[in-house]
């Protein structure tokens, strides 16, 4: 079952708990079995299954709490991005995962869906049910925050020094870079 490992990864990002992620994968697969007549042959089956997983996840969230929709969280997060970070080369996988974990959920899920799971912008738009423009802006900002977080790890390891960082911050303020 090749897609079950992919679904489990996404479920882990959504649930942050192995048992809950397993339940979500199982419920997704069962739902897929029931709804298979809706699957269009030739389309991306992994994207279809992931969409079902998100719908199932949202349904569970609605049951658990009165889900509060936060508008334009991106704007708030964007203000926390101080500069165009450098890309450190000598960091470990653990550093990368820790940096990813520092991202807020709305950025993390979209970066994972794009850069780890390989979905297109259009597929992500359909999976999360947000406009494609929002997918693009969240991806842009999510990657930027990730790079900043990685730069922090690099600085702590002495890979990027403060002087280099300060120079970049000045450049960013001058409006040169994204």
């Amino acid at each position, binding site marked *: *079952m*090749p*897609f*079950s*490992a992919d679904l*489990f*990864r996404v479920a*882990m*990002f959504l649930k942050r708990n*192995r048992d809950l992620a*397993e339940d979500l*994968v*199982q419920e997704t*697969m*069962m739902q*897929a*079995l*029931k709804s*298979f*007549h809706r*699957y269009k042959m030739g389309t991306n*089956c992994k994207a279809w*299954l992931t969409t079902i997983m998100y719908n199932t996840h949202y349904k569970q969230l609605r049951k658990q709490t009165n889900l509060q929709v936060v508008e334009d969280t991106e704007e708030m997060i964007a203000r926390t991005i101080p500069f165009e970070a450098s*890309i450190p*080369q000598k*960091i470990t*996988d*653990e550093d*990368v*995962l820790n940096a*990813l974990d520092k991202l807020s959920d709305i950025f993390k899920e979209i*970066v*994972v869906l*794009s*850069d*780890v799971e390989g979905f*297109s*912008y259009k597929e992500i738009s359909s999976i999360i049910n947000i406009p494609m423009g929002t997918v*693009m802006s969240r*991806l*842009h900002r999510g*990657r930027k925050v*990730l*790079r900043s977080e*990685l730069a922090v790890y690099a600085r702590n390891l002495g890979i990027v020094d403060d002087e280099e960082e300060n120079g970049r911050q000045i450049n960013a303020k001058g409006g*040169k*870079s*994204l």
Partner: protein
Amino acid sequence: MNCRDFHEIIDSYLSDELLTETNHGILSHLEQCGECRNEIEARRAIRGRLKNAVLSSPDYRPDSEFLTLLESELRRTAINGSAGKPYLWFFQNSWIAAAAGLLLVLTVGFILFNRSQPVNDRAGLGETPAVTGLRSSSLVNVALGDHQHCAIRFNLDDPPVSLVKASAKYKDLDKIVVPPLKRVLSQFELIEAHACKYKETSFAHIVFTDGKKTLSVLLTEYNGNEEAKSGEIFDFSSVNPKYQIARFNTREYAVFVVSDLDREQNKLASRALSDPLKHYFENQSQIASVLLTII
């Protein structure tokens, strides 16, 4: 294209989301700009690092035991039509089940109340008539009992549940049954479509009435050892004058048409339903097989 434009779209380029013309612009710029070449390589590298970090992390890898269980559960569901015990739903959603049961009683009760003629031999409703010559545990007699207790007398131990809750394979079952039945019995209207249980046997139960007479279509999983062979329609009417009973089999189900119509009308209804139901369940099996091949 300048460096600022390049930075704007560099990630979309790496995600292969740009038009061909824009890709050409990127490549032209990269030929001229060493700094942007470094930048794109660095961003490509960080994506690779991120992907590898997630894929190689045991935290994001499912246990093999879980995958084995999941696969067997999916296969079982694809074959049996429902995960776990379908009637567990009774206990998990008892208030909905109660509401469904109440609705059934109110709906059918209203229709019976407004009947201008009594149901055939009302005095006999206190007993469940059996098809003579067959054991009371015979599937035919159990189906007849379900028609009596559920569609006529509304007296079951467990309240009915929706078709789709009982089994994914029952989804749209009412839509499959209604048109062919209406073609041969145009005065009959659908009044109930649910799953119910009688004498430990689960049925998908679809009830029709014309206001005077009642017809039940009852489906239950078929173990292959009962009376009728696939494709044949068996008529049990001659042995029980109160009810007309016909039976045919689809691939996995025994289907009973039970009514207080005359014999020919009951057979007509059975013939009308035989092919649509067979095709419906064959399609369901094919869909399940396809899903199991791709997952």
